[in-house]
């Protein structure tokens, strides 16, 4: 039989054709009732003869029967057993094939990418008319280029249009995308063809990257062009101050992934597109060297690019970084005496990333002293009131920092209204622990940015410092607003608050229950003093290290606003105004402009390739296959299941039911018209 049915039981519904026949006959008999004087003569007529049961409207009846048969057949889901080309189907079931092509920049080595395209085209050519296939292009991410289709021309076109990317290789996203495609397909025979240079760095054995049961992963490795591969893996910026001016020295790390040493490699530094410096280095086989460039005196941010000569993998021969002149943080240390400021000012003066510009003052604080200061440290001095106090409050509100260290003078003095408005707690006296040999810090909020550098073992013993006296701080302020914005970051062993924080506006206030000198404690002579002081100042100033460069695949979040980004290759990317996010897909410099501000540049982002991709070490395909394939066994698709699935797919593709359904309803519509016409037509009186 050239056709069949997926749900033949529905054909039983064709028995409903008796309904129009019964209706046909019943309607003739029981349409109306006429009262008549007597049935005396009518009864004598053989009225149950065939004439009364005769069907007079054959066209109507045939229309109804045909319509019902068509509709019942539509529900039975008919399908032709031969496709349009005449090939008998049902032998080997149709399959869905996901062709995953690696487009990471390592595929640019030699002819790898061309080989990958050829392999993909061969896979497409091997598809049968009933098979469906799709292309998944992947690097660090993966995306499906088209829904599974049997259109080989489209698939070939998509493969030919594939281009190398700047991202590294990640197999897991490709496997997950392919699994999603296979899951969505009604075909039961599923296959993934992974075409890649099989870098080991792209596979981290992600357990969530699994193909559906029964799906087969076939790996097509491409290779060739392997040679010494030099890569710039990082650019570090080292800052120094010479004669009061900051100098920025880029350091590039060159790695040789190959097995042959590279001699006289020229490493060039470009600044804003202009050659700046160059170095000649030798890079040992499977080794690395650091290349230090001479310090640069920059006044404005500069685009630095370090370049190597061309080799097998071109993408990792160039690395970009944005060099920004580091603005030194202005810190004012206001103490009771020069001696009391000694430890703090010396500790802060040693800071390099970023450098602090420390100003020491004694005596009364003046308003002009606050100018240009990011952080003000009040070391055992009372918080000024009046105009100076108001300026201090403004500084904090606008993002500045205030560190208040309580000592003998501060603890005993009267707390001004301005101080109340700034401090997280109120000093109520002095606690003397000298007779106990002093106390150390008891509990510390180690996850807080001030203390997080001390979290690791042997990263500094904060408990080493002994406090012989400390200010007693009434942390339970009556004002609920103060409570809501304040936290205790550290406590003494006796439970008293040692360090408190309060957030005011954009700024922060840190309140320490001891002075920064050695009168009340030996903390200034402990190793942790210097990093602690740095962290307190940086935290109070709200300073964050700016990243000189990002990696392709990163997503940069910006503050809400109307931005448009221009990619290194000149592509314009309009960002969502409410949640502007910029995915980095190319290496080089992205420029983000504010369209609401006449296109002013708000940010320049350096984007580099993932250096892990430079490692061309091969991954054993068997390892990948065994990891992502469901173990053979209970999930194997039987031949019968495959045939059923194939028939289902064929029926789905042919969609004959749709035509039958339309024809059935069209016949019903015609029947309605015809029956209306016949019912209006006068009945021919038989002689």
């Amino acid at each position, binding site marked *: 039989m050239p056709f069949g049915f997926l749900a033949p039981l529905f054909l039983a519904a064709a028995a409903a054709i008796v309904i129009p026949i019964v209706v046909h006959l019943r309607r003739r008999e029981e349409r109306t009732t006429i009262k008549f*004087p007597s049935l005396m003569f009518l009864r004598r*007529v053989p009225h149950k003869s065939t004439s009364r049961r005769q069907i007079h409207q054959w066209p109507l009846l045939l229309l109804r029967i045909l319509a019902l048969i068509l509709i019942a057949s539509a529900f039975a889901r008919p399908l032709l057993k031969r496709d349009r080309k005449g090939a008998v189907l049902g032998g080997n079931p149709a399959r869905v094939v996901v062709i995953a092509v690696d487009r990471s920049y390592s595929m640019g080595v030699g002819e790898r990418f061309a080989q990958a395209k050829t392999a993909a085209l061969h896979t497409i050519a091997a598809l049968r008319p009933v098979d469906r296939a799709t292309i998944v292009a992947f690097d660090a991410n993966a995306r499906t280029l088209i829904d599974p289709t049997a259109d080989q021309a489209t698939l070939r076109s998509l493969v030919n249009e594939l281009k190398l990317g700047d991202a590294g290789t990640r197999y897991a996203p490709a496997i997950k995308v392919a699994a999603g495609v296979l899951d969505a397909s009604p075909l039961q025979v599923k296959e993934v063809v992974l075409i890649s240079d099989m870098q080991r760095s792209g596979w981290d054995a992600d357990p969530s990257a699994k193909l559906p049961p029964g799906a087969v992963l076939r790996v097509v490795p491409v290779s060739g062009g392997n040679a010494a591969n030099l890569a710039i893996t990082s650019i570090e910026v080292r800052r120094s101050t010479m004669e009061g001016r900051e100098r920025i020295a880029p350091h590039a790390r060159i790695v040789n992934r190959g097995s042959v040493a590279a001699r006289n490699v020229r490493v060039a530094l470009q600044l804003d597109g202009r050659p700046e410096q160059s170095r000649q280095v030798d890079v040992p086989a499977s080794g690395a060297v650091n290349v230090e460039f001479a310090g640069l005196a920059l006044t404005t941010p500069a685009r630095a690019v370090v370049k190597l000569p061309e080799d097998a993998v071109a993408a990792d021969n160039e690395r970009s970084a944005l060099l920004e002149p580091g603005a030194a943080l202005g810190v004012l240390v206001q103490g009771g005496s020069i001696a009391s400021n000694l430890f703090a000012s010396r500790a802060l003066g040693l800071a390099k990333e970023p450098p602090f510009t420390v100003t020491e003052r004694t005596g009364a604080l003046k308003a002009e002293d606050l100018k240009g200061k990011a952080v003000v440290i009040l070391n055992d001095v009372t918080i000024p009131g009046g105009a100076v106090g108001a300026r201090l409050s403004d500084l904090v509100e606008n993002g500045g920092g205030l560190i208040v260290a309580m000592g003998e003078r501060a603890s005993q003095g009267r707390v001004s209204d301005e101080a109340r408005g700034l401090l997280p707690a109120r000093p109520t006296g002095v606690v003397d622990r000298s007779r106990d040999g002093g106390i150390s810090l008891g509990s510390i909020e180690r996850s807080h940015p001030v203390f997080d550098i001390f979290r690791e073992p042997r990263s500094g013993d904060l408990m080493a410092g002994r406090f012989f006296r400390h200010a007693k701080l009434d942390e339970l302020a009556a004002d609920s607003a103060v409570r809501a914005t304040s936290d205790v970051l550290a406590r003494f062993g006796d439970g008293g608050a040692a360090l408190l924080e309060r957030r005011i506006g954009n700024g922060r206030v840190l309140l320490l229950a001891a002075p920064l000198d050695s009168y009340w404690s030996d903390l200034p002579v402990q190793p942790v003093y210097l990093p602690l002081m740095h962290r307190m100042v940086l935290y109070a100033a709200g300073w964050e290290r700016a990243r000189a460069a990002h990696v392709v695949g990163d997503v940069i979040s910006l503050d809400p606003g109307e931005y448009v980004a221009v990619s290194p290759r000149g592509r314009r990317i309009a960002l969502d105004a409410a949640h502007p996010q910029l995915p980095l897909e190319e290496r080089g410099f992205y420029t983000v402009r504010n369209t609401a501000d006449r296109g002013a540049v708000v940010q320049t982002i350096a984007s580099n390739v993932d250096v892990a991709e430079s490692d061309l070490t091969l991954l054993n395909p068997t390892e990948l296959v065994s990891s992502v394939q469901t173990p053979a066994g209970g999930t194997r698709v039987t031949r019968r299941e495959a045939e059923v699935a194939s028939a289902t797919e064929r029926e789905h593709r042919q969609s004959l039911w749709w035509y039958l359904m339309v024809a059935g309803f069209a016949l019903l519509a015609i029947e309605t018209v015809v029956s209306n016409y016949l019912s209006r037509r006068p009945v021919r009186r038989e002689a």
Partner: protein
Amino acid sequence: MTRTSPQAHARYIDPHVLASIGNLQIVARAVVDGFINGLHRAPHLGLSLDFAEHRPYMPGDDIRRVDWRLYARTDRYHVKQYEADTNANFMVMVDVSKSMGYGSGSITKLDYARFLAASLAYFSSLQRDRVGLITFAKEILEYVPNSARHLDTLLHTVASTQPRGASDYAAVLLKAQDLLRRRGIIVIVSDLYDDPAAIAAALAPLSLRGHDVIVFHVLDPAEHVLPFDAATSIEDLESGERLPVVPAALRDRYHELMREHIEALNRKLSDQRIDYIGLRTDEPLDRVLFEYLSARERRSRTR
């Protein structure tokens, strides 16, 4: 012949017009009065007569009624008029079974029977007959005994009667024999849906007792032709029984059966010396009376 009297034809009254007249006495008078004017010999029929007066001969008068002696004296034609004997009994038996309630037009067979009974009774009353009424279906339902003064009662009764039940001629006529012991004229108005032989057998005793029995067979035009087209169910008015039929398919056979039925009635009743007059409810009443009286006259001549 009086059958062709132009006056009589001119006086034909459409039953549908009569149906619009509510009062049966007016209906009867309208039918009978004009009719009598052209039917002068009617009063003589079957009656013992006393001379009343002479009146000038008019075309249509039986020339045997011309007083030739008076003609000899006056040289003019006069006919003798007689005064009717009031001793004759005139009984109208009206079938009021449910089948009589059928009417395809504006009047039913029962309406037609009412007009007919009223007209005949009025006509007889004018001749000083004693008029009476029996309405019947399965049995005798109403009985107005014969009397010269019962015309009003008769008219009222026949006007108010309604169709009910089925008809049973044998039982009714058997009962009527007990009620109608004195010889007279018995007029039966019915649709006669029964075996003609059975009807004739039931009427035979009345005829044998010396009654002049006249049967008016009233049928609706639809009963002759079965005019329905579409397939339908036909319900018997008397029994309520339904029969699904295709009228168009059996119309011919029905028509044939009806014709045979009428012929059988006519034949079998005539054999019993019973007058059979077939009527259609769309026929004028006065023409019916005319034919009736003509038939009576023919019979009187043959006696």
